[in-house]
């Protein structure tokens, strides 16, 4: 907290400079939390049936897969990288799962580890290329995006509906809590992923390395931190998370289709930014990402409840929110030269 006095000099040009850095990084998080509460409050006043715990739980049920994907994206963004392949990886996972289960009759217990392995392996490969050949992450993951989406189509150009009883059983299971509230199994998995990511990022050596790498790569290298393996590992984590997100989406949709999760990479990035993670890396919270996902889900819910609003308003509002939060980030971090 004592470092806050150092930046007091530039107080006039930077509106948030007098606030201590620790608090400053939390401003977006606070704004997001307030926004979520305000949206829920306004929704509860305006729409009948909005004010219920089940609406909140439905947010998780409808966005559990996005939460998992966004958690993976948070790891990458914290290192200052970007992963554009997540949406396609989700689609590939749904297609692969549906194809193996339906067309080949593989047991689900064998398919899921295989799909997760494919996700992690492709993430590792992309990370390896990014690190070894010093190519920008965005172009490598762009290629990954093309490749994964293309592979979906080579597996099947049509939607594969899953009628396998095990999968359908898991998908339709409702875990009841007190007062008749329920969640689905994917929600539990998503929350477990969130907690794991929180512990890994804030309480392990790997987590510290991720933050250090995003803060300043050369410093991290000079400190003797394993820059290369950390960088490869975050893309592996992102690949693994998108594969898991794909499995959860398969449960949610009960089908595998190459057009699933179109634009999910943007939703994941948006959730991460709205959740207060700096896109330049080095600062952010994985729990903020969860809040970001809830905000995106809340926008969708409000648009649904309103009824007269068309679905494209969701995109416009998300874009506007993204704009506000990115400008907020710039105002807070002062005028650092735009690092690419």
């Amino acid at each position: 907290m004592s470092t806050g006095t150092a930046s007091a000099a530039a107080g006039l040009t930077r509106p948030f400079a007098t606030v201590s850095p620790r608090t400053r990084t939390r401003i977006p998080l606070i704004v997001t939390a307030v926004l979520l509460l305000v949206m829920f409050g306004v929704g509860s006043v305006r729409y009948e049936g909005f004010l219920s715990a089940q609406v909140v739980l439905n947010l998780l049920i409808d966005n559990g897969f996005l939460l998992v994907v966004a958690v993976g994206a948070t790891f990458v963004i914290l290192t200052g990288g970007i992963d554009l392949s997540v949406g396609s990886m989700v689609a590939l996972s749904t297609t692969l799962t549906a194809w193996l289960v339906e067309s080949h009759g593989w047991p689900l217990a064998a398919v899921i580890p295989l799909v997760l392995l494919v996700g992690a392996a492709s993430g590792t490969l992309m990370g390896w290329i990014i690190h070894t050949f010093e190519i920008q992450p965005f172009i490598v993951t762009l290629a990954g995006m093309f490749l994964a989406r293309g592979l979906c189509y080579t597996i099947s150009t049509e939607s594969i509906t899953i009628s396998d009883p095990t999968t359908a059983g898991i998908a339709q299971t409702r875990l009841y809590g007190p007062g008749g509230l329920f969640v689905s199994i994917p929600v539990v998995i998503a929350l477990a992923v969130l907690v794991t990511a929180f512990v890994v990022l804030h309480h392990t050596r790997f987590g510290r390395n991720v933050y250090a790498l995003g803060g300043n790569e050369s410093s991290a290298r000079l400190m003797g931190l394993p820059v290369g393996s950390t960088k490869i590992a975050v893309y592996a984590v992102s690949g693994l998370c998108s594969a898991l997100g794909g499995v959860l989406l398969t449960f949610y949709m009960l089908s595998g289709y190459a057009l699933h999760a179109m634009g999910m990479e943007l939703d994941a990035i948006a959730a991460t930014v709205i959740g207060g993670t700096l896109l330049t890396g080095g600062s952010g919270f994985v729990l903020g990402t969860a809040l970001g996902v809830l905000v995106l889900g809340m926008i969708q819910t409000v648009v649904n409840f309103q009824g007269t609003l068309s679905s494209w308003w969701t995109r416009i509002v998300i874009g506007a929110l993204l704009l506000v939060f990115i400008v907020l980030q710039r105002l807070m971090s002062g005028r650092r030269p735009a690092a690419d």
Partner: protein
Amino acid sequence: MTTQPAKSEAVGGIGRRLAGHRLLWPALILLALLLGNLAFHHDFFSVRVRDGHLYGSLIDILQFGAPLTLVALGMTLVIATRGIDLSVGSTVAIAGALACGHISTAAHPGSVATMLTAVALALGVALVLGLANGFLVSGLGVQPIVATLILMVAGRGVAQLITGGQIVTVTSAPYKMIGGGYWLTFPFAVLLATALVAFTGFVTRRSALGMLIESVGGNPSASRLVGIRAGGLLALVYVFSALCAAVAGLMISSNVSSADGNNAGLWIELDAILAVVVGGTALTGGRFSLGGTVLGALIIQTLSTTVYSLGVPPETTLVFKAFVVIVVCLVQSPVFRAKVLRRRRTTTPRSHTTAGTAPQQQEVRA
């Protein structure tokens, strides 16, 4: 792609200058693709004149490649400043939606005046969108990929808002001219794209503008120290990119006489980036090649046409594109070159080292 090295050695005998030319690789790839097509369709190269119009596969490639060429043209300048513009796809959709929306509600849909107003409207809005991107990048210093991501996300929504979620169909002969018409037997879209490319080439290479853009991309702090105002230049390239995308959007919507807020220009930003990269403009900025970009766009379009004519599911083009991106990026990566060439240097000394080709590339810049 594996057959490429053998070819370069054969051509390398003609002259070292040609071998070091930066347009050599894109040109060879394009040639290989076209020849590959010829092997499957023997009338692939034939161009016929029917009803005073040119017809043929090559003309189709040029005509359908025109919007992509334009988008890639704008993207080239943005990438030369070390930026990226992800919002072009949305701009394409918005421009088409605005123009078709205006024409469909106008009193005289078929009149030239309506068409001109529609075009002006689309270009005007694109100007505003480009300025917004430029302000975020140069005014606020937001990373380009993030700044343009906002419009990419919101833009499709805006386009659908304009079209009301419908596919707006128009019947206007003057508007049809932009993307589907013919002028002096040539497709008008091709002529328009050629004119814009030539104009851009003239402005950037016959004035200091191109060099200024390259210096801002090459080393922002050094160019600031020599007194180049990067802010205006950055805003300019984003505005230019948005305008190019808008013209492309007009072409696409005019060609099919309708505007689809959802699918018009979908993935075109990725194709455009691909075209720019294949054309030899490095993503690290500081250098650009308009000729390379045009070749790159034609390669992408030929690739799509090839996949269609081979009868493979068209969506698998994505797999090809993925490999093209990776190979091109690896070839461009200095680290990769150093690693691979060091190994090769033991067998053929002083042939194609990075140190040797770099000054040559500077010299023969198109």
